[in-house]
């Protein structure tokens, strides 16, 4: 089993069906589930937070999924892409072990599914903190996830 980077198929399906109705620019709370390498995303069928929560990393200073501040879903007509971006993460005084990746999900949606997943991001390496700062700097051009056209 191993962590991987990708976009969940069920999330892409919602772009056409509108169900569940993601409102990424209109108040939905996007949360970040840190996961260990035991998490193996199944991009065909995984759909909700409950599919990844068993492998979530919890600890001091990060007792539940952290919030992605200022989430925005925007179009870049120069790079020809649509992307999900947000504020960089900086959490002080954390003690967390074996962080291998992050799974952003919509914490606001409760129907027809609860807390649907957006994508999975593999860090490529395991990180830990001890009474230290966890900083995640998103890709400045592509954010957390992007779709080219």
């Amino acid at each position, binding site marked *: 089993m191993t962590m991987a*980077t*990708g*976009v969940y198929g069920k999330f*892409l399906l919602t772009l056409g069906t509108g169900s569940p109705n993601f409102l990424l620019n209109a108040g939905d709370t996007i949360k970040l589930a840190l996961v260990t390498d035991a998490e193996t995303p199944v991009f065909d069928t995984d759909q909700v937070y409950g599919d990844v929560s068993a492998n979530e990393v919890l600890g001091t200073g990060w007792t539940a999924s952290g919030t992605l501040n200022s989430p925005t879903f925007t179009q870049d007509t120069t790079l*020809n892409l649509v*992307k999900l971006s947000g504020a*960089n993460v*900086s959490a*002080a005084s954390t003690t*967390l072990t074996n*962080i291998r*990746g*992050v799974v952003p999900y919509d914490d606001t949606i409760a129907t027809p599914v609860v807390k649907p997943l957006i*994508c*999975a*991001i*593999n*860090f*490529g*390496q395991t*990180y*830990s*903190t*001890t*009474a*230290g*700062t*966890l*900083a*995640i*700097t*998103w*890709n400045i051009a*592509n*954010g*957390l*996830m*992007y*779709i*080219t*056209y």
Partner: protein
Amino acid sequence: MRGPPPRTTAQWVQAALEVERATRGRVFTGRMADLRDDELRAPLKETIISTADRTMRVHTEGRRVIYSPRGEPILIVEMPEGGNQIEHGDHLHAAIRPEAAAVLGKARS
């Protein structure tokens, strides 16, 4: 390094320490909480792997020690994947710079 080249082992060690102090053992005067500070980075190293029919150059983790104004060592380990771990005293920090997940929708010609 000026003067005649070192000849004894002790001279070589002394010369190496001087280079360490001059190039890598800098005093960090920024804020520890700002893990995106360029001073909290360490250049990656390279190693060459040779097989029967090809040679590859691969990056390996970089390590660097800087010092706080109090003289405490701060160990920086930079991963080939782009993030780093920073250790000083009993504290371990993580600075992660992940690549984004992508859906490539443009047809290739």
